[in-house]
């Protein structure tokens, strides 16, 4: 498989621009770009050579909308051929407006309907813990996605279960209509999560937050990117 030339972050814009036609979600895609890059470049223990390794880390893009950044990073890291990006959303393309785990190597869940990734992530983290595996589960949600009640079932449950192999990244572009008074992180902290808020475009700050130890409890990192 051809890995994207210039596989560093500088090569991402060119990959991103190979996809077009999703004006509604272009900003949403861009808002996740730095988070996705830091995770795949410096945090997650994943590789296109170990797609089925039971000890790989799992990244779940719960907020499946606007997956252009996700696809660009997957291409940069060798999970998909960059040429695949050129025909995204076409009939014979594996890349749709919402990702499909059956069609795209490295995609851990099929998403698009909001509020599914976090409960699945809780189950995945529990399953890995039951099996004695040290792999980590990272779930990316949007701040508006947190309106879905299923997330709050999972947030409370993960806190009670002390799931320290679970990390949630909330990409906060203030798109939730009613917002979260006091900040998104408070909603998690009250359930026992370790919580931090960082600049969602500061890659070193993101890396520092993702690699904080959080023994005995799950962790949330709120990545603020601000309104468009």
């Amino acid at each position, binding site marked *: 498989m051809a890995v994207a030339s210039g596989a560093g972050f500088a090569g991402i814009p060119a990959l991103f621009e190979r996809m077009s036609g999703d004006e509604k979600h272009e900003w949403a895609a861009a808002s996740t770009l730095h988070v996705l890059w830091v995770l795949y470049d410096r945090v997650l223990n994943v590789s296109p050579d170990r797609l089925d390794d039971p000890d790989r880390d799992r990244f779940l893009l719960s907020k499946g909308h606007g997956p252009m950044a996700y696809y660009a990073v997957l291409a940069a890291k060798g999970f998909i051929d960059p040429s695949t990006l050129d025909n995204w959303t076409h009939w014979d393309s594996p890349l749709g407006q919402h990702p499909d785990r059956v069609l795209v190597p490295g995609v851990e869940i099929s998403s698009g309907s909001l509020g*599914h990734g976090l409960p699945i992530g809780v189950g995945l983290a529990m*399953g890995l813990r*039951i099996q004695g595996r040290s792999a980590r589960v990272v779930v990316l949600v949007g701040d508006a996605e947190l309106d879905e009640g299923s997330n709050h079932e999972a947030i409370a449950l993960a806190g009670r279960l002390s799931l320290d192999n679970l990390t949630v990244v909330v990409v906060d572009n203030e798109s939730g209509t009613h917002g979260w008074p006091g900040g998104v992180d408070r909603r998690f902290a009250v359930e026992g999560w370790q919580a931090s808020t960082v600049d969602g475009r500061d890659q070193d700050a993101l890396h520092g937050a993702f690699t904080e130890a959080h023994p005995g409890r799950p962790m949330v990192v709120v990545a603020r990117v601000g309104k468009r």
Partner: protein
Amino acid sequence: MGESMRQVFADTVREAMAEDPRVVVVLAEISRDVFGEHPRVINVGIREQAMVGVGGGLALSGLRPVVHSYAPFLVERPFEQIKLDFGHQDVGGVLVSIGGSYDDPVWGRTHQAPGDVALIDTLPGWRVHVPGHPAEVGPVVRAALAGDDRVYIRLSLRENAAPHPVVEGFTEVRRGGRGVVVAVGPMLDPVLAATRDADVTVLYATTVRPFDAAGLQAAVAASRPDVLLVEPYLEGTSAHAVAEALCAVPHRLRAMGVRRAAELRAYGTVEDHDSAHDLDVLGIAAAVRRLFDHPAT
């Protein structure tokens, strides 16, 4: 009175857990005392959407989840989670409900789920089992745990007087020449009573998906192409499967089940509800007479 279907289910799963480290149970409070404490029995609290989502995640980690609750809270409330967190992720799991269509009518409409099988039937790739006796539950559950596919098992307080061997297709309980009655799960005993004096074939089904088209075709070929379908859930749930099975045969079909035309806004007893839906012996017998005593000309 022997053990309930739920108790047999829990005992069977607990036995399997001792031997198969893949098996894990997810509950939402209901039946927590039946399963008791175990490292792989996870009670998520009253969080049914999370219950199913967690089940999907456990499956993604390589385990064999058994997700269990009362039928409305297992199938209706988290239906999108069933569709996406199992089906769309293309992972397997075993969903097991109790409560049937109206096992506890005094609890009202909130605790009734006659549409559960019809809902599951909208999703591809699910096997559906409807045991009619507690002794049929063990084999059904053991087979489901041993696989890696998606299975829905519908348990009930309603049961037939005697079990039948659990087989993949329909079991011929009685043979006759004036048509075929298909009785699903606990509807067998009322069907047998209602057809006592009728010259009809009676087929018994514990597995309704996949639907035993070949079994029905053979029964119809040996009798007449008049079919009475008696299901303990929403009327007509399997009518499309009968129509497809007999698409090459001019036939008549009457489908009985929980009526769908209007919500039955009443409490009372199971017998009251059976009568209201014509699912008691009198109602089924009347349908038998109307269909089989007046063959098409």
